[in-house]
């Protein structure tokens, strides 16, 4: 099972949109696929119209294996399942810190799923905490969506520094630009400067009202509007991503 984390320290950069669309494309070409919604806001669960069972919470998530198994739900798309998040996930960090090896916890808990799915996508909450560290060690690729602004570049560098300081393998980080508005000089400028940089994917995702409408469709754009500009961009991103070493 290959694992891809959609991760960013900043919020509102299109992590969930990417997780939802990329996992849908994976379910078509490399089934079966699982999305693991780790964000207590549950946006990817919402996009698939899924709510966790009443009995499901962060406690069960940390228990792993069977508890996770029985709470996985099928989306409306074949070969695409989702482990919904629960509002109690907001305490995951505190609960993780009480575990023995918190950094390894996620990896260990998902091991039993490795025979069931070819790929798992983590939709991560926007912060840099113990949970993030656990995600880093459980992921083959850490995919970082970035709005092409100087502030984004700064947070990206913070992430790189964090990896260096903690002896983590930064070669697994991949960044790509989202919400790109070609008419903005700063966007053009930053893409020109970083588009070819190592660790950056070439494909960018344009700012597009269709992406925002995903909240109305409540389905992957790549499924309901496969010919829209944004859906095509996700397709390009997906193909580039699958060409990466280790996937």
């Amino acid at each position, binding site marked *: 099972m290959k694992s891809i984390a959609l991760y960013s320290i900043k919020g509102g950069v299109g992590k969930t949109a990417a997780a939802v669309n990329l996992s849908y494309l994976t379910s078509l070409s490399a089934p079966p696929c699982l999305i693991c919604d780790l964000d207590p806001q549950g946006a990817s669960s919402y996009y698939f119209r899924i709510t966790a069972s009443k009995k499901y919470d962060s406690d069960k998530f940390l228990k792993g294996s069977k508890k996770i198994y029985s709470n996985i739900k099928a989306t*409306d798309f074949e070969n695409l399942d989702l482990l919904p998040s629960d509002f109690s996930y907001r305490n995951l960090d505190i609960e993780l810190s009480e575990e023995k090896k918190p950094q390894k916890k996620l990896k260990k808990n998902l091991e039993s799923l490795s025979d069931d799915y070819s790929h798992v996508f983590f939709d991560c909450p926007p912060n840099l905490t113990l949970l993030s560290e656990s995600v880093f060690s459980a992921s083959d690729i850490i995919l970082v969506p970035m709005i092409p602004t100087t502030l984004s570049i700064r947070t990206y560098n913070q992430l790189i520094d964090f990896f260096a300081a903690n002896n983590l393998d930064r070669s697994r980080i991949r960044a790509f630009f989202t919400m790109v508005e070609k008419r903005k000089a700063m966007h053009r400028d930053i893409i020109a400067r970083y588009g070819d940089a190592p660790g950056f994917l070439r494909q960018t995702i344009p700012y597009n009202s269709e992406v925002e409408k995903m909240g109305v469709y*409540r389905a992957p754009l790549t499924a309901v509007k496969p010919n829209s500009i944004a859906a095509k961009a996700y397709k390009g991103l997906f193909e580039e991503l699958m060409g990466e070493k280790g996937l």
Partner: protein
Amino acid sequence: MPQVPYAITNGRERMPELPETTVIKFSPDSVAISVPHILENTRYSLSFPERKKTSRHYFDTFDWQAFSSGLTVQSEGRTVSIREISSTRIIASDTLPSNTLCFMAEGFRPGKFPTLLSHISPLRAFCRVASFEVVSVKWRVLDHDEKTIGTIIDESISSINDENKGPIFHIITLTPLRGYSQEMATVRKALQGETVESVSESAAGIFQELMRHSGREPGDYSSKITLKLDAEAPVHESALRLLRFTTEVMRRNEEGIRKSIDTEFLHDYRVSLRRARSILAQLKGVFDPRTANHFRKELKELAGRTSALRDLDVYLLEQQNFSASLPPVLRGGLIPFFTGITSARQKIHRKLDRYLGSEEYRNLMSEWEAFLSVMQLPDPDKAPAASLATGKSARTSIKKSWKRVKRNGRRVSRETTDPELHELRIDCKKLRYLMEFFASLFPSDRIGPALKQLKQLQENLGEFVDCSVQLEFLHAHLDEASRNGCDTGLAASLGGLMTRLYEKQEEARSTFHASFRNFDSDRTAALFEELLTERINK
């Protein structure tokens, strides 16, 4: 029913908590029930219905291997799928090459479907066993968020031949999506509660009923001897029952042989024929020797008529292994060899087909069947053992045969010459057949281990003899080819193949003494002694 482990069906472990499918059966003439109407009283709604009218064909091997693996193979339109019988869930699907009546894994492009097919049965063809007209309506069940929680399929199934007779089945299948069992349970209760005539049934039960409707009984064929013999009955009567059984197996395989559906029809036919000959030969004094000898001769001749075809079948089945055992540069040389075999097979098959349709064969079989139908005991002067109790006769004959295997096996020299091993193999086969004929008379936990010991020895001898027969065949083929100006590619490939076979044969030869010692051990002896002195099953 043995389930195909998911390691095979899916290439991955099965998730333990996939929700159960429910099938609700209604009497076919029940007043049309309205699923949408019933759902009105629940929290759930339905998607726009998909209506379909299709012909559905079910496929299985002649010996129902899909069914006995807990699977069904079915086609609708040109889509063919393998489903789990208990959940009706699709495990793999593919496109059927046009209006096919029979298919094997080779007929498909590589993928999950053909892989699974050859896991179910590597050698047998999947043929149509039953066909139906199906009118179906499918809904997705939606919750308040319009999230699908499962599907409902309402099907009216009628016989494909007389549709105007009306449906023979009316079933509603509810399949929850993963993680939505509880929600769908509400829907199920609503459906069951609304209809008095409904019966929940296992999908497997429904499948069996459907088959019965088409005059088929899943699992109704096996070449294994399943007769329950009576230990007290005269052995003559039991022997006739066995012979009628083996003859029935032969008869049922004739059509498959003639249509050349797969290689196993002929194989089963030949095994049954050998079994019949073995009964005639080994149960001495049970039949009038003149009659027995007459039929032994006739059946031997019949077996002879089928050998050439079986030999060629074996080469064609071994094609991949043969090729893989050679270095890549020599593989091309085998192509003309196999082309030759294929065309020779065609000719030989035509000949056997003609024979099986001939009056000569008809007469032989009717003479044989007439002999089998006479239950009267033969003249005691000519057949003194005919009236012996089956149990006693079984023990004596098995004991005798077992001792012969031991005696002849011990006599095999250090050199383990070809004739010695060939002969011992035949002795083993005879013992094996006797034990299988009479297996029902013995406790299965006794006969099972004894048979297992014998099988291990047989495997070793079988390997040896197969290699030696194939070596001889290839040698003859090479000889003939050289007379006709054989090209060096073919010669090199056959030479390479012969070297591999020779190595295998010598390996089998070198392990013979060890495998015989294992059979001729105190442990095996104790097994047989216990088996043969034990009070026979009543």
